[in-house]
């Protein structure tokens, strides 16, 4: 992991943004996201990250492997990130832990956002090689 560029703490959820490579911003999700309206804190954070990605031409990698729980309201916020990233042409990779049932259920459903353009990839952590 490269140098940390930004960190969001919202309740028991921590998202750490780091420069994984000159072309990739990596966001590691840890803890639990149980807020009723997580969009209030996640939206401005991800707006800033997406702006940074757009300005630097970086792609985003969202890592959920260490996340213990993500409620449905937070999944909504993730869907918004997917839509905005696609809208501005930023490539987005979502990596999840296949051994966690709730992650499989959530991220499998989000695979419907994957299009042939390859801008969005959703894959289990094991596939990273």
């Amino acid at each position, binding site marked *: 992991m490269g140098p940390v560029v930004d960190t969001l703490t919202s309740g028991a959820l921590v998202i750490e943004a780091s420069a994984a490579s000159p072309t990739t911003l990596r966001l590691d999700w840890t803890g*639990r996201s149980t807020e009723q309206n997580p969009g209030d804190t996640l939206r401005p954070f991800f707006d800033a990250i997406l702006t940074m990605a757009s300005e630097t031409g970086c792609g985003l990698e969202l890592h959920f492997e260490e996340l213990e*729980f993500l409620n*449905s*309201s937070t*999944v909504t916020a993730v*869907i918004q990130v997917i839509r905005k990233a696609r809208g501005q042409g930023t490539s987005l990779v979502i990596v999840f832990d296949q051994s966690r049932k709730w992650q499989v259920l959530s991220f499998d*459903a989000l695979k*419907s956002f994957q299009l042939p353009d390859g801008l969005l990839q959703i894959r289990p952590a094991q596939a990273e090689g």
Partner: protein
Amino acid sequence: MSILSGQYSLPLPDVEDFDDYTQTIIHQWSKTLAALGFALIPFFFVLDVFMMPPDLLPRFAIYRLVTMALVLGQYVVIKETQPSRFSVWHGYFFSIVAGGMIAAMTTDLSGFNSTYYAGLNLVMISTNTFLPWRTIHSAVNCLILIGLYVGLNLFIPNETPVSRVALINNLYFLISTAIISIATNRVREHLIREEFGARSGLQKARDALWGDMEVAKRIQTSLLPRVRQLPGFKVAATMFPAAEVGGDYFDVIESSRGETWVSIGDVSGHGVESGLIMMMTQTSLCTAVNNDALQKPSKVLELVNTVLTENIFRLGTDRYMTISALALRGDSLVFAGKHQDILVYRREEGRVEVVPTTGTWLGVLTDLRGHLFDGTIHVDDGDVVLLFTDGVTEATNAAGQMFGEQQLERALFDYANLEVDAIVHNIARDVRSFTDHLDDDLTLIALKRVAGAATFVPGAGAT
């Protein structure tokens, strides 16, 4: 329908009006004032010992004992009674008893020349500081105290002649203290009124929010299915809505053509919006399954999604819905929709089979063609199909552990040979005893294949 009671209460008083509110405070603080009185009155006897001629000490001790007893009695009365419009008299009683004692002491000493009158300032300040009564009470109370002092010293014979200078001096300080007390009281009354207004506003907001939650809960629970006849299956269901309605949904539908459908889902987020989306889904699904015969569940959900995404867009929200729709066709269940896994207890093999659901959710894409797929589950006599929402598997205990799907599989295995309503009841009981509170709705539906069975059995919480 078993519904958990909500935990919405903010720490705000249920107040009818400002008078009720102040009566309560006056009553409570009168008790504190009385307690302070019976603690300090004997304490000042130490001062008497240093200041008084020895021959007066027994008399002063009696003054203090009688006063202390009266104030102690007042304390008991306040403690044993409820606030009322008479609570304000406790302030007067305390002032007259404590002030009367001080005034009586000055008559025994040197009348207006005695410095003991200073105690009246303490009584005036303490009474008007503790009691948030109206300014008029504050003013009358101060007048009574000054009147007691002047009256007793003028009319009770004293060997020391009345000193006009001392009288003017003492009255000057007493009246100044009275003015300060009254002014302080006036400011505080204003602040308390403002505070009361803010509290009332918060209370109204809380009530409005509570009303919204009740509406959401009503939407969610009023649309649940009633007793149904299901050919070939015994069905039981239960739903426990969380305090802030989580958007769980289930339905058992018999189409006009005699087809039977079962559906279960969960709208993202909480509250009224989730309830509305759940209602739209229920209505759309009922309409869709009645639209044509032998439709594929995937096609039905595609249709429902078209309506739902349009309405979600119109609402300006970003909800989505996990859902599984199952068509009961003889000894098979044809299903589609991305929701939780479907658990199937196989009686012959004595094991629980996990059937994953595929595709995506409703509301995330405008067109779901190509995203939903139909699957088929064959069920034999005695097999049990269990549908559930994430409120079951994600129920969390005090240690932060989730109930989890594996524990649910074990529970199904343990209870599968019971009657279908007992299966649902026991699993729901296990989950609720596992968690100390429900963060999310909890929904379970069990379908047990029974040759010739034709009854919908409502579960413990289903009607």
